[in-house]
Structures are given as C-alpha cells and as structure tokens.
C-alpha cells in the first residue's frame, strides 16, 4: 500500500447548542496522511483550531473500532461515509485524494435533535428499548443454559439481528427518518429466541408505539437503511417486525 499525504477542504456543520440555528463552516487541513482514520483527521483539525484560538468541532466518538455505535457523521451525503458496512471511526483517509472537499453534517431527524455541532441526542433509542426491548428475567431466576436447545439457524439469525450497534445511521439515511430497522432488529433478535416468546406480542406493540411517540417516520422500504448499516442488518428484520406487529395487533 502506497501512503500519501493530502490537503482537504472541509465543510462542517457548526451549531453552538440545541437552540442555535447553526451554519456550515469551511476549514482547510494539510498534511493528512492516507493512513489516518477519518476521526484522526478531525483530531488534527481540532488541535489546529485550538492552537489558533478557535472553537474545535464537537463530535461523538468512543471505541474507534466500529462496535460501540457512538460515532455519527453524515459524510458527503452518506451516514458513516463512502465505505460499505463501515462506521465513521473505521473510515480511513485513503478513501480520499488530495484536493477533495468533504461535507460533514450531523444525523438529521427530529427525533435526534442536535446537541452541538455534529453531536446529536439519540436517547430516543434508549426509550424504545425501555418500552420492551428486553426479556423480563430477574437475576438469579435462570434455568441451566442448556436446558432449552435453540435451533442453530434461528440462533444465528437472532445474533445477526442483535449485532445492531444502535448508531442511528438507518434513521439518518432514511428519507422518512424511520427507526424501523433499529426496532426491527431488536424485535427480531428477541422474537427468534424461545426465551423471548412469552413477551413477544407486548414487546412489538409497545416498542412501535414508543417509536411513533418519538417522532420517527414510517417505513417505505427503500432499503437506504440497509445499504448504510455498518453491521449489515437486513431489511428482512423490518418485514419480520411487521409480521410480529400484525400477529400481535390483530390478536391482542
């Protein structure tokens, strides 16, 4: 791999706080190595801004290895940037070349209000989980783990759905700001396991109700969510949620 350095123009959303209207600011960065991660490029920019006595850019990030789901930039019109099945923190600068201009915006959805710059409030996701995204088992009540065999295919499908990192890219990509891929993944994770069966009806009804209260849109099944999901959560999970919802809604 040949390494190179580049100069870039960044157009970044700046917004002092949730009340502020916000605007784009343009920044120049130089000597960016192709080996850097995208967030390291932002580190370099922020260091530069602080040294110049300017306000650095606030952005969410934590594990920087693609699993915690904290990072959340909408880069050149795509959540988490141009790479497939990737998070912003794992995007590397070799995706760009010298002279490029990159536009970075926060997740946009009324259910994800901007807190500052590129940082948004995703606590709506927590509240959706509170509405039923769990199995009600108190500590100490469990039977032996192997007492209940689980069909391997179902266990694998459940795991694939449970791989969701709750980053919100699905919402950011959706033209309706729908959270149905997130909710569908959780409903699928739990509905596919026998342990989740007793609560499956209430779970899906309550989680969807909470999702609606939070102000997310409905699903048009355009597939944009699936296309940007860092963990490649399948659109089938939405269909499965619909089935669960119908079964529950028409019966309960």
């Amino acid at each position, binding site marked *: 791999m040949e390494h190179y350095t580049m100069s870039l123009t960044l157009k970044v959303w700046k917004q*002092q706080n949730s009340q502020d209207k916000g605007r784009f600011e343009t920044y120049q960065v130089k000597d960016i*190595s192709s*080996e*850097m*991660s995208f967030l*390291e*490029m932002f*580190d370099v920019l922020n*260091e530069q801004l*602080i*040294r110049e006595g*300017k*306000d650095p850019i*606030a952005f*969410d990030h*934590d*594990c*920087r*290895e693609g*699993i*915690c*789901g*904290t990072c959340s930039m909408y880069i050149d019109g795509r959540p988490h940037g141009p*790479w497939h099945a990737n998070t912003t923190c*794992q995007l*590397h600068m070799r995706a760009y070349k010298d002279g490029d201009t990159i536009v970075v915006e926060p997740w946009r959805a009324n259910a994800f209000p901007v807190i*500052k710059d590129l*940082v948004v409030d*995703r*606590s709506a*996701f*927590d509240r959706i989980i*509170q*509405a039923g*995204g*769990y*199995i*009600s*088992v*108190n*500590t*100490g*009540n*469990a*039977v*032996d*783990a*192997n007492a209940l*065999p689980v*069909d*391997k295919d179902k*266990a*694998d499908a*459940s*795991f694939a759905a*449970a*791989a969701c*990192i709750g980053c919100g890219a699905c919402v950011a990509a959706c033209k309706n700001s729908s959270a149905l891929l997130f909710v569908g993944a959780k409903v699928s994770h739990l509905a596919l396991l026998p*342990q*989740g069966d007793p609560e499956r009806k209430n779970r899906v009804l309550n989680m969807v109700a909470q999702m609606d209260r939070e102000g997310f849109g409905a699903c048009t099944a355009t597939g944009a969510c699936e296309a940007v999901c860092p963990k490649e959560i399948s659109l089938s999970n939405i269909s499965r949620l619909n089935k669960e919802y119908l079964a529950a809604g028409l019966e309960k």
Partner: protein
Amino acid sequence: MLNSKIPAGPLDQKWTEFKGHCKLVNPANKRKLEVIIVGTGLAGASAASSLGELGYKVKAFCFQDSPRRAHSIAAQGGINAAKNYQNDGDSVFRLFYDTIKGGDYRAREANVHRLAEVSANIIDQCVAQGVPFAREYGGLLSNRSFGGTQVQRTFYAAGQTGQQLLIGAYQSLERQVALGNVTMYNRHEMLDVVVIDGKARGIIVRNLVTGKLERHFGHAVLLCSGGYGNVFYLSTNAMGCNVTAAWKAHRKGAYFANPCFTQIHPTCIPVSGDHQSKLTLMSESLRNDGRIWVPKKQNDNRKPSDIPETERDYYLERRYPAFGNLVPRDVASRAAKERCDAGYGVGTSKQAVYLDYADAIQRYGEIEVSKRNLQDHSAETITRLGKEVVKEKYGNLFDMYEKITGENPYELPMRIYPAVHYTMGGLWVDYELMTTVPGLYCMGEANFSDHGANRLGASALMQGLADGYFVIPYTIGNYLADEIRTNAIPTNHPAFDEAEKSVSDTISRLMNIKGKQTVESFHKRLGKIMWDKCGMARNAQGLQQAIQEIRELKKEFWSDVRIPGAINEMNPELDKANRVADFIELGELMCLDALNRNESCGGHFREESQTEEGEAKRDDAEYSYVSAWELKSEHEWQLHKEDLVFEVAKPSQRSYK
C-alpha cells in the same frame, strides 16, 4: 491494617458461608435505600439492574450518550465459565486454579474461587436474557478453547461476545428504568465522591451537555468505571475510558492497589504514525493458526515475500518449543518487543512483527483437497481452498485488518505489535468489594481483585458480570442493613457544598490557565513516558526518571494547558482535561508501584528480575502481597501490604519452554 474480610472456613465453602450469614435488608427498607452506580459497562449495568430488581432506588451514571456504549462492548473473544458442557474435565476448581496461576499468584484466592463458582450462573442468566451465544447444530451452546487453556470453557458470540453480553445487561437495565427502579443519567461524569462522617454518601457529577455540576445522594456508591489503560495514551481502550472516578475516590481515601499491573496484548495492529489516536486489538485466536516471525537480518527492508524461509526467525517457536505461538499474552508481547528493540522489527516504523497465515492456508488447503477427493492438486487450488477455510474462521478479523491498514492479509503477512489492553490494578476492595472508604464499592476492571498480575483471556467479561449480577446483590446488603436508619441526606449538606466547590474550583482553575498547549499534546507526552519507562519492561532507573518527568509534566500541564470554550456548555476539551489531569497523577503512582515491586510477575516485568535466559522471575519471598497505596499528599503515598496466602493453589514458577 487492611482487612480483606475473607470468610473463615475451607476455600470452597467461603462464599456459601458468607451468603448464609450476611445481613439482609427487608423489602420495605430497600425502597428507602438509594444506591449510586457510576459506569454502565458489564459490571455497572448488571449491578444497576440487579439492585433495581431487588427494590433499591438506583441512580446510574455514564459519560457516554447511552449505557450501551460502554467499552465492555468491544470485547471480542468470549467469556469463561466452569460449565463443563464439553465433558473435558473442567470444574470450578480448575477455573479457579487456572485464573490464579495465570495471574502469576498475585490474586486473592477467596475472590477468585468465588468468581469461578458463580461463572456458571452468568451463562444461565445471559442465555435467559436472550444473549445469542454460538450454538451447535443440536441447539446446545458451543464452546471454544481460548488463551492456551487445556479445556474448552469459553462461550462466545462470534467475535462480538462483549457486545452481546453488554446489550443483555443494558436491556435489563433499561427494563428497570422503565419500571422506575433505576434512574439513568447519560452524558454525566462523576467528578467527586462526597464523604460524610467517614462514609461515602454521594457524588458530584458534571452534566456534559450543559456543563452544570449536580449533587446526588446515595446510601452507597458503586464505582464500575473501568480500567485506566488510556494513561498510556495509545491503548485498545475507547477514547473516553478514564480513571477519573476511581482517582477521585482514591483522593477521598480509597486505596489504589497494584496500579503497575498492566496487560499488554500481543496481537494488535501497529502504530502507523504520530496521528494515531488508538490501537485496535485483533483477537488472540489469530495465534492459533498464524505463525509469528521477523527477518533473521537486522533492518531487513525486503518485502516479506522476498525473504526466504531460511532467513526468517520464528522466534516464539524457537524460544518456547512447547507452546510456540501460543505462549501467554505477556510472554508473547515481551518477545516481540525484544526482537524489535534488537533491530529486527518490520514495516515502516520497525515496531512490528509478522503474523503469517501462508502456512495455515497451505495446510488447510491440503486438508480440503484430500477431504473433497479432488484430482486437482495444483498450488492454486490448494491456496484457493485454504483461503476459503481461513476466511470462514477469521474472516471478520482479516476484514478489520484490511480496513485499517489497506493491506490484504490473505496475500501479505499481517504486521502486529503489542498494545496496552487491560489493567489488572485498580481500587483496593475487600471480599465484599468495598474499598477502604465505607459505603464505597468498586467493581469490574476498576477494582484490582481477581486477575492478579495477568488476566487470562475471556475472564474480564466473567469478572464484570460476576461482580454485578452475583456478588454485589449479596454483599451490599451486608452494609446497607445497618443503614436503614439513615435518612436520605439532603444535598445542601456542607459536605456536598464543599465537594462541589472543590470540583468547581478545579474546573475554573483549568479553564483559567489559558496556556498554549493542547490537552491532547499533554496526554500524548504522558503516554510516551509511560510506554517507554513503565511499559512492557521496566527498570529502577527508568522508573525514577519517569516519576521526575511526570512531575514536571504535571507542573507544565497546570500552567500551560489551553482549553477552549466555556464551562457551562458541552465542552469535550474540558472533559478531556479533567481526565488527563487525573491520568498524570495516576502515572506517577504506577511508576512508584512498579519501582517498589522489584520482581517480575505477570504483566509486570522488571529487568532486574529475570532468569539468565531473559525470562520473568517472580519473587514470592519478598513480594507475595497486594500493594495498596494510600494518598497522603501531593506526590506522597503510603504503601499498605495485604499479604497473599495460598492455602490451596501453591505457587509455582510458570514455564512455557
């Protein structure tokens, strides 16, 4: 004198004995008792949900935007449990013994035995919560062997075990939030413990969105705030991981134990340049099939493919013929450092060694050809089939490597180098997980208790969940039973005033320095001192120098740091400054501890204490104790020793030759 409160009786009866006789709190009283939990990783989230279920009024705090982000989520490999589902001879005793031995006889027997006892319950609990562990075709749970153990006791969910366990605990926690038993405070950072009449009674937190300080009362305070590997700046920890909560507790009287015990993980992606902000771990399982080597010639700049077999040094296989590439983490890490320091490193930085899958691809390819009865024995077919097998086993790790480095590990050997991964040290706790401050508990990676001088693979998840689900629900009752007459203390109590004022003064002081250097630059410099002088190999001279350098760095930090923005707003630079200030103080203590411990044990390697062949030499006669440090004043600590008594697992020298 430290009282570890280990119950009397035979080792395997201690926990049963304790549970049978500890004090209980009746349900009506539980409703009146408030518990504060700082941190919502595996230990914090499991404790918050379990205590909420019991009926305590719980307040949980995390600095992330959601409890689900805690860094437990990044654990890849798995979780150990003495289930013996594989019928391969595992037992509670074996897990206990392996953990004690793996920790190089620097952990407390009673705690470790309890950990092994409750390990099986953890798996049951997690499965009941819907954690999708890997399964066999028969529908039962699958196990793998991990970290060189002789039994298969590791449960896993692909390479995302930590994520799945944390989500299980997080969901339990959110259920308790929905039921009103737990109040969750996201984006809040603890900046002080409030101690009233010698007991922990609350905390001061900063709301990271508004910048405002808040006071919270609790009859007990539980710190589950994780490890402090970020003191090295570069580590596999998340960017936000910090020592602040534990350090504030230390400043309020909690002893800090074995701070120098750091685990350096051998298979990480090497540093690519000065811009590097963190390091990424690749699962230890890669060493099962990969071969580690460096060129036999120093400063060899040829491409790996141009270096013939005879000019490669498979140094682990050479030095440790019995274990080869599967030696424990600390041994593998030191061996890599030794080669690189001697000038045999590879890559542009020369701080890397090769992890080569060419042989594995060839081997698997040949097996496939004969398995499928293929007539085509061509090299291309073998390579193609071999790559398919490797992809199936390690595909996600290879993808990760390629994403970060841009190199294809199926074609080129991967470059790896050790990186700071886990800290075994932490706040000193007794058998009940209480620190030296009554009412202040510490759990998970933040405490020191179970891993001695070196943690075995797949044991961190086990410990975090054991503490939260199965230990603290019992031990906290033993303390709170005597607190039922204590009414909630209003937060206008002078102790709260004083604590808040001191926090607010510190913040103002930081903001008013208005110096020239960024927080990040100080953190990087601290990290370099720590890595160079208190990293994989330590010596007295280097440690003394490091202490001096850290002291100077501290002065410079407090006179020249520049923090932009204001106090009462979201200000990530200020958050970072608060954390780095504590890391600097911790760094000094780590060096002091490393200097004091003139022996090599586990992850702590003192160059003065090695065998003639350069292997670690433990000194049980002098150092079979836990170092618990009490802060006296700036730069001054008093050492308290908790002697380690091994009644069951008799210490022996580790050998992997």
